């Protein structure tokens, strides 16, 4: 199934993209997708521990299952304000 991933901060720099549609298996979790992306981009190695995942604008647990069409954002350490 396909999900839409928006990239910010270290992920935008590491992937070179602002967003992409990613193919994932139907039983993928948020954590699985994070691992899938991190493993593809050398400069992101090790970042997972400091990253939360938002699906459809809500923070979810890494075990949360993804659905077709979900919008996913990896929240590396936040620094608003």
């Amino acid at each position, binding site marked *: 199934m396909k999900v839409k991933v*928006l990239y*910010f*901060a*270290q992920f*935008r720099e590491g992937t070179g993209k602002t967003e992409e549609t990613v193919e994932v298996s139907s039983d993928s979790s948020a954590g699985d997708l994070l691992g899938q992306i991190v493993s593809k981009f050398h400069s992101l190695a090790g970042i997972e*521990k*400091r*990253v*939360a995942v*938002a699906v459809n*604008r809500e*923070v979810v*647990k*890494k*075990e949360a299952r993804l659905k077709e069409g979900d919008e996913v*954002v990896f*929240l*590396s*350490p*936040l*620094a*608003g*304000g």
Partner: protein
Amino acid sequence: MKPACSITEQPLDPADLKPAIQDPSCGGHSIFVGTVRKRNHEKEVFRLEYQAYAPMAEKVFSEIAEEAKEKFGVKGCSIVHRVGILEPGEISVAVAIASEHRKEAFAACQYVVSELKRRAPIWKKEVYRDGTSAWLGGEENVELD
């Protein structure tokens, strides 16, 4: 009228927040303005680059504003955060609270600023005069499982 809680690419003027929180029953208004510091981590800052996941940031701002109204009984709360490239001295964020009385206005403002720093999906990269740069953050963020 602009929305009370928003992300903008335009330079911020705290006076713009007033229309979102006007309420004649309110006698106490607190306004917090965050600006870019010239020095951080003992380095001179050349500029800051802010990025935001705007739809979620605005949603989080609205949630925080409602929490502030419920916890402190304040009548109005407006949060605006700027994104893009900012230079030292420029305003990155403005928070305005309208309350019947000043005690709640102060307390709510502090709460809102702390919460937006902790929860809003906004990222900040400091670029220093010596050419180095760093993505900041992590001290007070959303809980990671």
